[in-house]
């Protein structure tokens, strides 16, 4: 079993806390994505699991073994770094074989394992090359190969795709996901890119300022964001989050104190006599969709995502309505939590 369990894991540098207690259970074979803006502590969390950062408080278990005081090499993990961290003075083969050599495996077994991984990653022709003779995507694959030859309990990924160009990133993210499914290895993946997070994760952890705001499946987070932060972070274009006063036409509960109302741009539809009136500022026709930047009578900006064939002209006023009841998310304005 290769589960990972975090129990109230905390990290502080001196007196400055950076992670305020994260708890979660990761099942065998699950692909968990930790997502959040830079500086939210997601990389630190991953490095604590890897054993590269000390744990200030709490417990980390890997494969049901407490690893708090274990060296990285004794944790049965493999990590893919943002800059790949390939050994520049070794060939691709030696890069992948390094960990196996340290484990004193017989030579022919090492060769067999490395070649198997190389075939899986289409690296066979490059085994004798040095990392600097490879393209970004190939280096990325070598880093993956180095992780998989060791057959660890857990893969850790630290923003592995952020150094690639957009097209390659989309391609690699599919490859990584397929590979992980095939190998069935429990994975913890850190990224700041919410699209990457949504497309890859079985479940994701949204982190903000050292706190795990919400843990759940991508759809769950999309449909039921627990906090204003998650609501604004998940989904593209971002959810409209405005004071209740901006939507006088909607019937909102009045007994819950000040509210923040969230409506996703794609959950607004044009409807005659709809409760929301907005003046069109700018139209972005993207083909499949049309993104409309509009202004509410209160002066607040509102984003609307309409079908690609929608005919909208700048300066006109649209009558809009939320698609259904579930499209309106209500949050407590003070705590930011969902109501």
């Amino acid at each position: 079993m290769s589960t990972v369990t975090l129990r109230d894991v905390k990290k502080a540098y001196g007196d400055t806390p950076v992670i305020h207690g994260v708890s979660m259970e990761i099942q065998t074979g699950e692909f968990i994505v930790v997502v959040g803006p830079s500086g939210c502590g997601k990389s630190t969390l991953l490095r604590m699991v890897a054993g590269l950062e000390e744990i200030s408080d709490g417990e980390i278990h890997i494969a049901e073994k407490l690893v708090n005081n274990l060296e990285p090499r004794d944790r049965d993990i493999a990590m893919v770094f943002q800059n790949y961290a390939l050994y520049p003075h070794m060939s691709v083969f030696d890069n992948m074989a390094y960990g196996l050599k340290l484990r004193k495996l017989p030579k022919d077994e090492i060769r067999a394992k490395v070649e198997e991984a190389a075939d899986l990653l289409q690296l066979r022709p490059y085994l004798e090359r040095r990392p600097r003779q490879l393209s970004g995507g190939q280096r990325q694959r070598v880093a993956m190969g180095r992780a998989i030859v060791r057959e660890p309990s857990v893969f850790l990924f630290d923003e592995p795709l952020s150094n690639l160009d957009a097209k390659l990133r989309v391609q690699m993210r599919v490859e990584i996901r397929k590979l992980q499914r095939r190998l069935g290895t429990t994975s913890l993946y850190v990224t700041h890119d919410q699209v990457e997070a949504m497309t890859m994760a079985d479940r994701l952890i949204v982190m903000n300022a050292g706190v795990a705001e919400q843990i759940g499946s991508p759809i769950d987070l999309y449909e039921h964001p627990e906090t204003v932060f998650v609501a604004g972070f998940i989904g593209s274009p971002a959810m409209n989050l405005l004071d209740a006063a901006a939507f006088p036409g909607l019937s909102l509960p009045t007994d819950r104190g000040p509210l923040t109302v969230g409506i996703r741009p794609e959950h607004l539809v044009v409807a005659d006599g709809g409760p929301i009136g907005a003046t069109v500022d700018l139209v972005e026709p993207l083909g499949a969709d049309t993104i409309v930047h509009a202004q509410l009578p209160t002066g607040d900006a509102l984003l609307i995502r309409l079908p690609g064939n929608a005919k909208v002209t700048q300066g006109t006023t649209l009558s809009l309505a939320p698609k259904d009841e579930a499209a309106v998310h209500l949050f407590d304005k003070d705590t930011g939590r969902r109501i």
Partner: protein
Amino acid sequence: MEKRVYFRARLFPYLLVAPQIIVTLVFFIWPAAQALKLSVMRENPFGGNTRFVGMQNFERLFNDPIYLDSFQTTILFSVATTFSGLIIALLLALAADRIIKGATGYRTFLIWPYAVAPAVAGALWVFLFDPTIGIITYAMALFGYDWNHKLNGNEAMTLVVIAATWKQISYNFLFFVAGLQAIPRSLLEAAAIDGAGPLRRFWTVTFPLLSPTTFFLLVVNVVYAFFDTFGIIDAVTKGGPAGATNILVYKVYSDGFVGLDLGGSAAQSVILMAIVIGLTVVQFRFIERKVSY
């Protein structure tokens, strides 16, 4: 578009580089030319005239057991100085790379010896090891060891190696620290996750990645030991006892300015010049191209 500054006046650029060219001409090219000329001349012992003798000065040198001895002494001295300097500096740099608190202070202290003039560094060690009044000599006497570098050639050699190494450690240290900092931390972390302990990480990752720095320092240190240690030798042993520390560069001086054999001394300096040119070629041709990863 690349922006280029150019001067309309033809003379102005030459004026700007003139100071450098003048310094080079007066202090390097001219003396070197003089040495070349003198190396094929012989001075009349009573002054007055010099005559052309061809390669005789060189022939005599290579048949002179004292000169060949001095060659050996120089090699021993440079190997000892270079290796102890490199190893100690690397250890210190590794330690400096680890510590976080007080790292700046530590580094500053380690850099100081480099600012000390060779003769002063020599004088410092002479005082410490003086057979009659030296504090270290005194300490060694307590353990029953009778140190006297003025009589014992091996002790004299040890002392000049210590003094020369001490002065060069700072320089090596700086380069090693910079080299270590240029190694991405994630490489060492990856090695740690791959299962390498600290020693293994050093030999399989850090050391190979430091090799360009190490080779550079190797050449620089050999050059230092061959040429820049004159002040130390002069202050500590004056080449003695009985020529035990008479390295080539010191012999050039003692033969030429003390022994007044200008032709022989010039021939020796021409040989030294050839050595330094050779080392420079090695540095640029061989090392800078070969050591890549």
